[in-house]
């Protein structure tokens, strides 16, 4: 320790993972906690690494040099600093000295790159750009997040129809349901199996074993070219869709499908820091992580005064949560009833004036076709291909694919 360039002190020898997490989160401000973990620490998964990173701790894992699988798993779970040693159990002999030297070298090399506490509300950079499994292949696919404010504007309908239209252009598409409040994608597609594909993929991501094959096994084939990751069956299963795990899922999904269309939840609030003293599980973590991973965000609003007001109020929050994504606004159920004559012009004028949105996709209210699709558990193109609602969304799909 004396040879170290900075002051290093062993703060705590932790008994288990829970001890480690609480110690990292309770670290005194102004000091950089470093967590040195063994590769064989029980229950060490992606979520724990994310929590350590969110607490601002740098994670260094000690791995047996011959155990390539453990090294790959740890990298997939987000650990960037790996010390490969010959005999991890040897602490006092020459192996231990070399371990200490390597540790100090690692600390010196990284310096203060990870100093300070990362904001708990954003996924740390080492996650989204880290060397996880599957990132060796170029990231070719694009992620489309379908978001909408509260009030059932038609997120699931738009997401399912959009994915169906993209798949009909002969490109591999993945449709997923990351809604943690009212997941309904499986039911809308008439799925008889209620097992959650996305939760299974998140579990694999947590364990560090999610690759393209594992993701394909969790998904279900709707027809050749279109796969589905059904969401959680109940809203109270939202902890299974941890933000860090979903970030890995979307990264691997880019290697599985050209287009990944994700149906998100409505809420963008991140006030867990206000509500809790300790780092709390984030209710909207799945939605936020999806929006931050997305290349295109399709914001769906209901085409009536209340729906428009909700959409316009939430658009600034959406932009601040995901500043880099391309935004497309879709207004669903466009009809003259609640808006007045000439609904198209009125709605576009309102968007322009209040939200600064220049163009939007207007989906007409085709109640009969949508009811028939829901009754049969099929997409619009399967039940009513001539529907006006389907044609508008087909135009959006063509526009996205050509952009």
């Amino acid at each position: 320790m004396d040879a170290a360039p900075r002051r290093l002190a062993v703060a705590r020898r932790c008994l288990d993972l829970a001890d480690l997490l609480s110690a990292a989160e309770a670290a005194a401000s102004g000091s950089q906690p470093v967590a040195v973990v063994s590769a064989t620490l029980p229950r060490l998964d992606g979520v724990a690494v994310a929590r350590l990173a969110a607490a601002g701790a740098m994670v260094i894992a000690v791995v047996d040099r011959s155990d390539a699988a453990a090294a790959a798993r740890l990298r997939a779970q987000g650990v960037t600093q790996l010390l490969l040693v010959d005999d991890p159990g040897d602490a006092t002999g020459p192996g231990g000295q070399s371990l200490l030297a390597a540790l100090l070298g690692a600390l010196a090399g990284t310096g203060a790159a990870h100093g300070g506490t990362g904001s708990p509300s954003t996924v740390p950079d080492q996650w989204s750009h880290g060397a996880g499994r599957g990132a060796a292949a170029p990231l070719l696919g694009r992620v489309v997040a379908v978001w909408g404010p509260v009030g059932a504007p038609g997120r699931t309908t738009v997401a399912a129809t959009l994915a169906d239209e993209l798949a009909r252009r002969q490109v591999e598409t993945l449709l997923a349901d990351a809604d943690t409040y009212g997941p309904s994608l499986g039911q809308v597609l008439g799925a008889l199996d209620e097992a959650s594909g996305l939760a299974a993929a998140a579990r694999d991501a947590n364990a560090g074993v999610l690759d393209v094959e594992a993701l394909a096994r969790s998904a279900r084939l709707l027809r050749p070219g279109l796969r589905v990751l059904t969401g959680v069956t109940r809203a109270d299963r939202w902890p299974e869709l941890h933000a860090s795990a979903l970030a890995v899922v979307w990264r691997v999904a880019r290697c599985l499908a050209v287009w990944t269309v994700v149906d998100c939840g409505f809420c963008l609030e991140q006030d867990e820091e206000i509500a809790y003293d300790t780092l709390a599980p984030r209710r909207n973590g799945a939605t936020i992580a999806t929006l931050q991973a997305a290349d295109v965000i399709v914001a769906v609003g209901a085409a009536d005064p209340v729906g428009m007001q909700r959409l316009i109020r939430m658009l600034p929050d959406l932009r601040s949560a995901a500043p880099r994504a391309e935004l497309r606004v879709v207004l669903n159920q466009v009809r003259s009833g609640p808006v007045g004559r000439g609904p198209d012009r009125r709605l576009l004028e309102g968007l322009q004036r209040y939200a600064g949105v220049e163009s939007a996709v207007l989906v007409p209210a085709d109640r009969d076709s949508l009811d028939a699709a829901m009754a049969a558990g099929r997409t619009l193109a399967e039940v009513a291909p001539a529907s006006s609602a389907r044609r508008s969304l087909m135009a959006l799909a063509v526009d996205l694919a050509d952009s």
Partner: protein
Amino acid sequence: MSEPALPAAAAVATSPTLARLARPRWSDTRLLLGVLLLLTSLATGAHVMAGADRTAPVWAASRALAPGIELTSADIEVRAVRLDAAAGNYLAVGVDDPVGLVLTRAVSAGDLLPGAAVAPGAGLAGQGRQVTVPVSAFHYPPDLSRGAVVDVYVTASPGSAASALSTASPAGVQAATAAAPQLVIAGAVVVEVTDGGSGFGGPSASVGVVLSVSADQVASLVGGVRAGPVDLVRVAQP
């Protein structure tokens, strides 16, 4: 931007197929199997029941018949009965033909015809004769029909040859003024009751009753009928 090509791993990564809600159709396999099962069970049941049928058709009398009557096809009918050991006692359809045979004992309506109850050749081909007797209204039982047994009484009208008959009776003294009815034939079997073809008969019209008698009774019956009005008295069957 044209669609990028995915790495080869995506091409071989297979996903299980999603089981989706299916609309029920009339051509559903389960429905067709169910209908097939129903028809098969019906056919099998009918076949088994038919195979278990041990009944045989035998001849039975369709109405009450007295002995001595010659059987016609209107008198007999087919019954399906299960006889087992007693099958040899009765006349089987297709094996025996009772038409033309004469009953030797009385049978009620619906009785099976035992082989011992019929005998060949005692009808017209044998010694039997059939005589038609005119009977005026209310002098015969109203429901008189084929197969009944009657006694023939004749009341001789005065001045006819009946006086010769009356001298043979015990009450011969009164024969000159009012002749007593005489029993001409006892126990004659009615073969047929005819109304002469008028078609408007009914129970209160004069009819002709065809009686079956033996050859030696014919003369006395015909003479008696000529002597005066005829009364037919039904004899109850034993």
